[in-house]
Every structure is written in structure tokens, then in C-alpha cells.
């Protein structure tokens, strides 16, 4: 599920972008020695494969009219190893943003973390642990299935966490979290089924691909696998439980104000008099009041506003913008008209 | 009896705005072998897609008496079967058997009937021993034959083929010619190899820039050297 700009605050966006950039930079540096020339084309094409693969849909049972498709993070992690898969899926996420406008520029950090880094590593680790190097198809299939469900879930859980940290939504954290977990359990299940089925096909026609023998595949040692998995579980578990248990009423702490508690002080108070004056100005003339309008005063403010002037400021703003746009459009139209007969 | 294909005033533009077909009118009786000829980018492949209902433009396309629309599409697909340009696109199942059984299974036949169909189709194209092979282990000529078998097993009345002669050596091409000539079905073949078209078709339709330029007896059209060179083609050696 693509995170959107609008569900983030600038600090959260900047933070996640920094984490994603650092992570990707680290991986790119780490694999630079092992990436042989022949990996470059392979990685790019498998990225394109993810897009093309998403077009192959199939009917889901019991849900007429819906169809599933594969995302492919775990499949790529199994075939390419986690580092290369993380790079490939990250580039897929970047292209989704830059070409298909899925998820915004600011949300890119979140999306890389949720959809590329976490699924690639989590999926790969689980797969490695379950299969333990064995090529028995039962183990491969169970491993892939678990890896898909957990990888998809792990990424999905992060979405409400990030949104809650940003504090843009009013949807209670627990509701959002439970919805995401529920929906993505199904998504992960479908992903798991199709990944297992594709692995079955590959074992039949190109078993070398499944058996870790794609030349130059970057692998991790078993202890690294376990250690990272433990750390990862602790971070996710701790983060989620902290957010869910400590703040039962939906992370209101992150808001500057508590409408249900009129006495609640803003987390950030500013005593600069100019800012206070602007604040005051804003709250008095606010047509579309921000949360900074005290709920207790709201009725009052609204009554004051009714029929008085402040509505006109925003009216002027919107009308001015609309007129400007119309003027721009008209100018462009006239210019084009004038160009086309001569051209 | 209804015509095999009737197209009235059909036009189609790709999403990027390329007009691939422009007011096409065409009608074809059952049992004929039609060659769609034209230079690269003429619109041959698109016309074949339109006949099978894969692209939806303006105008009417009627296949064996059924107009193409959502309701009829399934019935039409059982009567008109298309064989794509690249056999690798057509052969995606792990074994040849699965691939050839795919269509009949979808038609709801019993397992015995399906097996019989697969056997017949393989025999027609001469691949009986290959039944358990994976498609990517077949040679170029065998892949082409297998792709045709996947379509034959559905026993359609009409078969469309897109450049079936591509990347085949002369012997394989002759084998394919013989196979296609022996099929009783109505065949519609898009190709820019004039020798192939001349050897197989009794009727030719010359397409260029999305329009039908000429339509008539294959020999007559293909021996008109002015017409052919004007549209990037050549008079086939066998006619000249």
C-alpha cells in the first residue's frame, strides 16, 4: 500500500527519507564489490518484470470480481539474495513514484522502507530459516509462504505507525493498524500462494534458479540472518506495542491540541509576541480554522464570524487564484492559436 | 450460412493516438485462406487482434454470424482462435501437454476428450513424441508447430496466424506451409513474406497505414509489381 505525502508531516517524511537513503546507500556500497557487470542488466530487467508481472492477474476464490496479482519482493529475494532484491524493489518503488505517480515524492522514504527494504530482508531471512538450505519442495513452499505473509505484514504495519507519528490522520491508531493487518493478511496470503506456485514452476523448468545457484548471488551468514531478524522483531514489536498500548485514544499526543480537553496545552508553545499576534490574528479571522482554534471557543468564534468579513479574505484568495489560472490558460490558448496557422 | 468474418467500417487507435486501423471493411467466406499482406507497421497484427476481439474500436466486427461484444466473446473465442507472432508467448505452461490441453479444458471437455484432442493436435503437427517436453526445449520450428497445435486442439472454425513464418528456415517453412495447406479451417495469415503468402493463400488483402489498399485474388494482387513496390512489398519469386 503506497504511503502518500499528505498522510505525513515534513519531519517524518524527512526522517524516513534519511533512513531509506542511508539504508540504500549502505546496501549499494556493500554490494559494489560483488555486483559484477552481468548483474546490472539482470537487476534492471527483473525490476521491469515486477511491473509486467503485476499485469498477470487471476480470479480470487469467494470474492467474485476481484483478482490478485504478484508483487514479487520475496520471489526476487529468493532468486537474487536480499541486497540485490532490496535495490531492485527500491527502484521499482521509485519508478512507481516517478512514472506512475503512485505515492508522492515526500513519501518515497516511507515507501522504500515499507515496500522494499523491510519485505526483501524480512522475507529472505524467514525463507532462509525455514528452508535451512534444503531444496525439498515442501520446505521451499512453506518457507516462501511464511516469508510472503510476514514480509507483507511487516511493511503494512509500518504505514499506520508512520502516519501516527505524523499525526495528520484522526483515525485512531488501533483501528488503522487492525485494518491494515487484516487487509494485508489477505494480500500476503495471495502473494504467498502465487510465489509458491511460481517457485513450483521454476523448479520444474529452471530448478537452478531456485537452488541459490544464480551466479554471484549475495548471501548472508546464518548468524547475521538470526541477529537481524531478532533486532527487526524487537523494533517492530516494541514500536507497535508502545504506540498501541500507551496511547489508547489514537495518538492524540502528537496533535498540538486536544479538542476534548480544552485545558490541554499545545505541545509547542511559543512566546514570541509577533508569532502570538499572528496566532491571534489567525484564530480570530480563521475561516477554515486549524486545530489551533480552541474547541471551547469554537462556537463563539463561529458566531462572530457569521455574516462578518473574514470569509471574504479566503474568497478573494480562491477567486484570485481561479482568475490567475484562467488568465494563464487563456494566454497559452491565444499563443497556441497564433502559432498554429503560421506553423 | 453466415460469413466467417465480416468487418464494417472498423477503426482503432492505440492509447497513444496512433491510428492503427482506419475504416476497415472486409468480408470472408468459410473455408478460404486469406493472406493479410503489408509493410511493417501497416496494421496487420492489429487487424488480427480486432478479429479476435482483443482491441475494441468503432465499427462492427462479426465472426461466424456473432457480433463481437462482451456477451458473445466467449462463444467467438471457441470459433476463432488466434496464434500469436511469438510462440514463446503462446507456450507458457510447463509441458507441451499442459499447453495444448489448456484450451480444451477451458471449453469444459471431459478428461478423455481432452486427451484425445491433445493427441490429435500433436499428430497433425507431428510432435507426438514431444508431449512431455518443456516448451523451451523445443527448436524454433517445433515451437511454431506447437503453438499451432495449442490452437488446433480447440477445433475452431477459423484460425488467425500472425507471421507464422518468422525465423524459420526454408525446410521448416515448407513443412509449415504443408501443414497449413492441409488444414480444413478458414485461415487468416498476416505476413510480410510474399513467397509464403503466395504459396498458401487464395485471397489477399493488402493493408498499408491502417487502410485496405487492395482486396482480391492472391495471384492477381501479388503480381501487380507497381502496387506491391509502392507499398514496400515485392512480387514473390514464385509468381514472377
Amino acid at each position, binding site marked *: 500500500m503506497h504511503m502518500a505525502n499528505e498522510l505525513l508531516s515534513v519531519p517524518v517524511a524527512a526522517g524516513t527519507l534519511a533512513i531509506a537513503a542511508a539504508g540504500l546507500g549502505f546496501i549499494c556500497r556493500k554490494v559494489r564489490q560483488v555486483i559484477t557487470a552481468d548483474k546490472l542488466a539482470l537487476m534492471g530487467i527483473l525490476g521491469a518484470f515486477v511491473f509486467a508481472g503485476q499485469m498477470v492477474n487471476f480470479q480470487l476464490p469467494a470474492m467474485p470480481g476481484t483478482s490478485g496479482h504478484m508483487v514479487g519482493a520475496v520471489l526476487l529475494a529468493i532468486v537474487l539474495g536480499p541486497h540485490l532484491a532490496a535495490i531492485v524493489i527500491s527502484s521499482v518503488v521509485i519508478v512507481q513514484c516517478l512514472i506512475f505517480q503512485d505515492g508522492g515524492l515526500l513519501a518515497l522514504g516511507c515507501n522504500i522502507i515499507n515496500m522494499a527494504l523491510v519485505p526483501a530482508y524480512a522475507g529472505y531471512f524467514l525463507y532462509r530459516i525455514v528452508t535451512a538450505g534444503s531444496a525439498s519442495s515442501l520446505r521451499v513452499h512453506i518457507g516462501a509462504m511464511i516469508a510472503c505473509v510476514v514480509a507483507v505484514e511487516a511493511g503494512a504495519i509500518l504505514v499506520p505507525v508512520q502516519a501516527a507519528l505524523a499525526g495528520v490522520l484522526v483515525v485512531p491508531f488501533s483501528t488503522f493498524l487492525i485494518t491494515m493487518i487484516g487487509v494485508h493478511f489477505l494480500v500476503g496470503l495471495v502473494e504467498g500462494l502465487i510465489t509458491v506456485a511460481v517457485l513450483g514452476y521454476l523448479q520444474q*523448468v529452471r530448478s537452478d534458479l531456485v537452488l541459490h545457484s544464480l551466479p554471484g548471488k549475495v548471501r548472508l551468514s546464518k548468524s547475521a540472518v538470526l541477529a537481524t531478524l531478532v533486532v527487526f522483531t524487537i523494533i517492530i514489536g516494541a514500536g507497535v506495542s508502545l504506540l498501541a498500548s500507551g496511547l489508547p485514544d489514537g495518538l492524540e499526543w502528537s496533535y498540538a491540541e486536544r479538542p476534548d480537553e480544552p485545558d490541554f496545552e499545545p505541545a509547542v508553545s511559543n512566546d514570541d509576541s509577533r508569532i502570538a499576534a499572528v496566532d491571534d490574528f489567525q484564530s480570530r479571522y480563521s475561516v477554515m480554522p486549524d486545530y489551533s482554534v480552541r474547541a471551547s471557543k469554537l462556537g463563539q468564534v463561529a458566531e462572530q464570524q457569521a455574516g462578518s468579513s473574514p470569509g471574504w479574505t479566503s474568497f478573494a484568495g480562491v477567486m484570485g487564484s481561479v482568475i490567475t489560472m484562467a488568465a494563464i490558460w487563456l494566454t497559452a490558448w491565444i499563443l497556441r492559436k497564433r502559432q498554429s496557422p503560421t506553423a | 450460412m453466415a460469413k466467417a468474418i465480416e468487418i464494417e467500417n472498423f477503426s482503432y487507435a492505440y492509447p497513444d493516438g496512433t491510428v492503427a486501423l482506419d475504416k476497415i471493411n472486409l468480408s470472408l467466406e468459410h473455408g478460404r485462406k486469406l493472406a493479410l499482406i503489408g509493410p511493417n507497421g501497416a496494421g496487420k497484427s492489429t487487424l488480427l487482434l480486432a478479429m479476435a476481439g482483443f482491441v475494441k474500436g468503432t465499427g462492427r466486427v462479426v465472426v461466424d454470424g456473432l457480433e463481437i461484444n462482451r456477451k458473445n466473446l466467449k462463444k467467438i473465442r471457441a470459433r476463432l482462435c488466434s496464434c500469436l507472432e511469438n510462440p514463446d508467448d503462446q507456450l507458457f505452461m510447463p509441458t507441451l501437454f499442459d499447453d495444448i490441453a489448456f484450451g480444451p479444458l477451458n471449453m469444459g471437455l471431459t478428461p478423455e476428450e481432452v486427451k484425445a484432442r491433445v493427441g490429435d493436435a500433436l499428430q497433425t503437427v507431428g510432435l507426438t513424441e514431444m508431449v512431455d517436453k518443456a516448451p523451451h526445449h523445443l527448436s524454433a520450428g517445433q515451437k511454431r508447430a506447437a503453438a499451432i497445435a495449442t490452437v488446433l486442439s480447440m477445433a475452431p472454425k477459423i484460425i488467425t496466424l500472425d507471421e507464422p513464418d518468422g525465423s524459420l528456415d526454408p525446410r521448416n517453412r515448407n513443412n509449415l506451409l504443408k501443414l497449413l495447406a492441409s488444414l480444413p479451417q478458414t485461415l487468416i495469415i498476416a505476413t510480410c513474406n510474399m513467397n509464403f503468402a503466395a504459396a498458401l493463400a487464395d485471397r489477399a488483402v493488402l493493408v498499408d497505414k491502417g487502410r485496405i489498399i487492395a482486396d482480391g485474388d492472391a495471384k492477381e494482387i501479388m503480381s501487380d509489381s507497381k502496387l506491391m513496390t509502392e507499398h514496400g512489398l515485392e512480387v514473390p519469386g514464385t509468381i514472377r
Partner: protein
Amino acid sequence: MHHAHIDKFAYQDSPVHRLDSRVKFIVVLVFTAMVVSLPRTSVSILACYAVGPFALLVWAKIPLRFAFKQILLVSPFVLVLALSCPLYDRTPATVAFGPFSWRLTLGWMRCFTILGKFTVTMSALIALVSTTRFNDLLAGLQRLGLPKVLVIQLGFLYRYIFVLIDRAHHILQARQGRKLRSLGFKAELRIAAAMLGSLFVRSIDTAEHINIAMQARAFDGKWRTLSRLQIRAADYIFALAAALFMAGLYLLVKPVLQ
């Protein structure tokens, strides 16, 4: 999904298309950050911000209908979350707009802000990507510090999206042509897996061919490209104009409209 829409307008020519990709990218990034950081319930100011992407789109001759369609296409997730706001925040508020005034809840205003911000930032992103060729954007991003491995990777990805989407289309057509009824979930899954698997195997084969093509052209593992990026006077003017526009909105208009 069809690839005809992917770079439909990036190959046109207009003053906006000719701007340097780095300048455009940074301007759009800063613009997005500014819009996102606007207060959570301010809708009218968004109209002023919308002038920027609108001007770019019109100036670059990108049809507005295309932009709107594109925005609509990617909106479902945001739409669901935005529409859930009114359910959870029912604090009443009065909205005055010129001669009119309504009673609403803060939840609704949040919902409108989220959707408004979404529209404005998305149109800015669309203005960026439909006026910039992807490879120019990549070259720009590389100059801005994107790791080289990722740049190369993205270049290949972009190039082969078109090839593989065509292949996927053909495979889908082959299935569609022979699929006359549903065979049940198990068979459907098996068939989809076979299609994906064969696409995957062919992708790997293609990669092998590309390797040969690369080595045949003296590729030795070191990636060399000629950058043809160039910052010109027009880019400075554009950057200045964008900075003035954003600063003006921030300093002058925002406090008044609040």
C-alpha cells in the same frame, strides 16, 4: 496498464520541457514539502498554491484532463483515509466563504485539506514527470547524489518496462484467447504462475543477451555515460520565479488567508 501512457508527454517540446531536470526536481520537492507542511485544516490557501503546478502544466501543453485522470487513478488509498476523517473528528466548525457560510466538522475540513493537498502535490509531480524525460531525470538525480548502482538499475528498468509489458500483454492475450470459462482457483493460480514463471525465465534470458551485447561493446564493468545536462539562464529564471512564488505565498498570502 498500458505503456502508452508512461511517457506520453515527456517527449514534447516546450519551455518547461527544456528546463534542467535538477532544477525542476528540486523546485517540485520543495513545493511538495511546503504544501504538506501547511496547517491541517486550511483549504483556501491550497487554491493559491495550485496556481504553480497549473501554470507549469498549461505552459508545457500537458492536457489538464490527463493530469486529472492520473490523479484520480492513484487516489483510492488516500481517498479512503481522507473520508474516514469525518467519522472520527466531529468537532463542529463554521466555514465562511465569501457571502456563504456552512456548519461542518473539523473532520470534514481535514478530509478536504488532505484531498486538496493530494491534488496539488500530485499535479506538481505530474508536471515534473510529464515534462522531463526519464533519463534526464535520472542523470539529474545522479548529479544530486543518487547512488550509481541505483541509477544504472533504474535506466535498465525503464528501458525494459516497455519490452516486458508488451510480452505480458501477449501472454495475457494467449490466455484470454483460449480461456472460455473459469477453471476454479487452483487451476487459475497454476496458470497464472506458469505465465509469470515463463515471463521470469524469459526475462533472465534477455538479461543474458544484454550482457553479451554490453560486453561486445567493450563494457568492462565501469559504467560510463555522457552527461548532456546543462544549466542555462532559463533555469535560473525559473528557479528564481519558483522561489518568489513560494516565498510570496508563504510570507504574504498565508497569514492573511489563515
